[in-house]
């Protein structure tokens, strides 16, 4: 029995022991989300790293609480996997950097995450943000300052804004996030200046930016805080320095966000302006001068008018000119410049006028004025020039129309100006009426000129083709030349008549006729008999009458050669000529 009781107690003890071992882990398993911060107390230039770790789920993201006192930036996430006694567990850590917006004590509320349909939340964390000035002076490694030349200004008055970044540690990735000047016109005053200075016995490197601000609205304007972020190298004090630290480094980068304080400026309206107010606010001067004191009528003199000073110099315009009836005035291009490298914005603008006196005498350019508002004296002031005397002597030569005016005395260059324009005179040459326009004749000539060359070309082509054909075909050539050769032959008969050899004339006439028929029909003509001739002529369509006449004549000519019948050579040609023409007309090949 005892042993059975002991067994029961043993089982209970084992279960208790097991419960003692496993219960804490089971309780811990319920805290599926945890939040932690790297520091609970920081200076306003520092930032807090908030880490939220979610156990057991890799997909869920935490929902952050409202953090109106901080700017929140995500710094990424990391996953951890653990194997303990053969069991695997995983966790995901989300890291955020919280940049404080103000000093004080703040509570970071609960971050939540929904896992398996159940909402889990973290415990709130309280942090304290100390003002930068609360840290010991010797421990302030970097800080910002911003100041203005005055906190009470008139509309348009120049306010110099000076922004400085003090540092005594090495920094990287410095970036000015915002520098807004709503309600102001802004002009840069030079580049960023770098210099060294000592504050409370501590030496700092300083970067300085200057801006000239010109308020455009009446009322209380605020220049919002300017923010600068940078990275600072911080050596870890927890880890012992080892040899490897020198090789790989043990320092970590810490992001610092610095802010200036907002600056309030009271902007007052200008008092009621007097007539002729130029719109300039600041300290200005007006200068005037003539390039010569004595000139001749027709010559020009340059009036130079310069406005210079400090203030809203970008507003400088041309001062009003007095009435200058005795002069013709030509404008020249103004020049000017703005000086930004000094402590304030200053500049000048020069206007040049070429004055041409219209008459001789002792003339005068009257005094000129420029009214501006002086914020130091809080009143309007008027700058004046003195009257400029000019002696104009009569022209020595005959006055000529000057088409050019000297606008840059000293350089000798002149600008040509068209003073008047007119039409050019009429044409005087009589060739204007030398030829009367005859449209019909002109058109006929044009048509002829256009058509004749192609017609000539066609003629050339036809002639060339014909020449080629005859060159290639000897029969054709014989046919073409048959009548011509026969006529030549007839001329020889006429010449023989004087020799009184009638038989020879008859023989020649017979040969002429037969050779003509032979040439015309492309056969050997001299050997033709009257019968063959008759047959050939008939077969080529010659009418019966001509055939018979040809045969009869051939027979008579042959008879005349061997008989006493004498045929007059002149009569022969008289008979043969029309016969040959008749045959030539009738023979078709």
């Amino acid at each position, binding site marked *: 029995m005892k042993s059975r009781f002991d067994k029961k107690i043993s089982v209970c003890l084992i279960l208790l022991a097991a419960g003692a071992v496993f219960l804490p882990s089971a309780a811990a398993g319920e805290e599926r989300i945890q939040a932690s911060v790297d520091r609970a107390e920081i200076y306003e230039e520092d930032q807090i790293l908030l880490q939220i770790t979610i156990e057991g789920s890799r997909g869920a993201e935490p929902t952050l609480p409202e953090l109106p006192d901080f700017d929140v930036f995500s710094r990424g996430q990391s996953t951890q996997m653990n194997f303990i006694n053969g069991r695997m567990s995983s966790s995901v850590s989300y890291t955020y950097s919280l940049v404080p917006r103000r000093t004080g004590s703040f509570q970071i509320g609960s971050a939540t995450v929904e896992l398996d349909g159940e909402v889990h939340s973290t415990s709130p964390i309280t942090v304290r943000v100390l003002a930068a000035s609360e840290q010991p002076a010797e421990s302030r490694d970097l800080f910002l300052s911003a100041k203005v030349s005055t906190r009470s200004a008139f509309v348009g008055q120049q306010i110099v804004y000076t922004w400085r970044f003090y540092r005594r540690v090495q920094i990287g990735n410095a970036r000015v996030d915002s520098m807004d000047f709503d309600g102001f016109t802004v002009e840069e005053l030079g580049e960023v200046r770098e210099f060294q200075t000592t504050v409370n016995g501590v030496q700092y490197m300083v970067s300085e930016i200057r801006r000239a601000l010109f308020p455009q609205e009446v009322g209380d304007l605020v220049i919002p805080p300017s923010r600068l972020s940078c990275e600072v190298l911080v050596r870890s004090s927890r880890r012992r320095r080892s040899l490897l630290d020198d090789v790989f480094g043990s320092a970590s980068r810490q992001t610092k966000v610095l802010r200036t304080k907002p600056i309030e400026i009271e902007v007052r309206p200008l008092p009621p302006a007097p007539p002729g107010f130029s719109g300039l606010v600041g300290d200005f001067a007006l200068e005037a001068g003539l390039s010569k004191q004595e000139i001749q009528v027709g010559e020009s003199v340059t009036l130079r008018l310069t406005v210079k000073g400090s203030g809203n110099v970008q507003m400088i315009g041309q001062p009003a000119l007095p009435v200058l009836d005795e002069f013709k005035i030509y404008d020249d291009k103004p020049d000017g410049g703005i000086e930004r490298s000094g402590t304030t914005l200053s500049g000048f603008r020069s206007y040049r006028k070429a004055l041409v006196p219209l008459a001789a005498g002792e003339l005068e350019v009257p005094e000129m004025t420029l009214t501006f508002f002086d914020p130091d004296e809080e009143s309007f002031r008027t700058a004046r020039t003195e009257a400029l005397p000019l002696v104009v002597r009569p022209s020595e030569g005959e006055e000529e129309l000057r088409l050019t005016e000297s606008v840059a005395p000293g350089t000798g260059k002149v600008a040509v100006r068209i003073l008047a*324009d*007119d*039409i*050019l*005179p*009429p*044409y*005087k*040459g*009589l*060739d*204007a*009426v*030398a*030829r*009367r*326009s*005859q449209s019909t004749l002109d058109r006929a000539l*044009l048509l002829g*000129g*256009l058509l004749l*060359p*192609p017609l*000539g*070309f066609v003629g*050339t*082509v036809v002639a*060339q083709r014909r020449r080629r054909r005859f060159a290639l075909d000897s029969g054709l050539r014989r046919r073409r030349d048959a009548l011509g050769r026969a006529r030549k032959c007839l001329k020889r008969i006429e010449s023989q008549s004087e020799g009184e050899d009638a038989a020879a004339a008859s023989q020649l006439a017979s040969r002429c006729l037969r050779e003509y028929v032979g040439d015309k029909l492309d056969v050997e003509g001299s050997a033709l008999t009257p019968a063959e001739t008759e047959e050939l002529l008939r077969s080529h369509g010659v009418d019966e009458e001509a055939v018979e006449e040809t045969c009869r004549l051939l027979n008579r000519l042959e008879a005349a050669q061997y008989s006493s019948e004498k045929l007059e050579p002149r009569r022969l040609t008289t008979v043969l000529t029309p016969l040959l023409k008749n045959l030539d007309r009738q023979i078709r090949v």
Partner: protein
Amino acid sequence: MKRRSTLLVFGLLLGSAAQGQVLELEAPSTVVNTENESEGDLDPGEAFVNANTAYEAGDYLLAIGLLKRLADQGFDSGHLHFNLGNAYLRNGELGHAVASYRRAAIRLPRDEDVRANLAFARQSTKDALSPPEPSAVLSTLFFWHYGLSLKELQVVVLSLNLLFWGFWAIRLFHLDSEVLRWIFILLLVLLVATAGSLFVHHFFPLQVAVVLPQEIEARTAPDPESVVRFKLHAGTEVKVKDRRPGWLRIVLPDGQQGWVEEQWTELVEG
């Protein structure tokens, strides 16, 4: 002197008659009737010299009359139209002056005096409309079309025509000559280009209407009762797209169209 006074009287009479017709419109005033002056033709040289003398003496009306008579007799040189333009301009007739200068510019396309006076006359026009002129690209690409007068173009075409057919005929006997072949191709291209230009000049001449009175109305239809679309002023040059009896359909550079009465414009072709 008698002749001059006769011209003046006719000019004034006809001018006032024209003014009566258009009521508020200031009609072209100078219509110099020369029919009654002499039965025969003027001696051209003498008339031209007299016209120049009258111009220099400030008698622009007489100069206009003489030069117009010469033009009616068939004298059609660019310089004659140039002088006529000068006389019209001095007489205050901007529309006629622009038309005459335009005619002179067609006949003397490269004459700087003509261009200068035409530009001067155009400066006096009221309407901000660019005259119908070819663009710089077109006038560069087709320089022979816009840079030569019709007469010059005719001479060039006739010469090229003769050369082209002559070379072709020579080529018939020298088919193997490579030089002749290229000359032939070159001549063919030149002839086609210039003959095409001559064709366009003859059959599709640019018709430009120059407004004569101080103001005329362009209507939506060739009907005096139709709606007035826009108004044009003296000396303005507009392209003519169509013609109906007594009416011209004009096109502005921006494509707007309207009908104007032909009697209030002077038509220049070329």
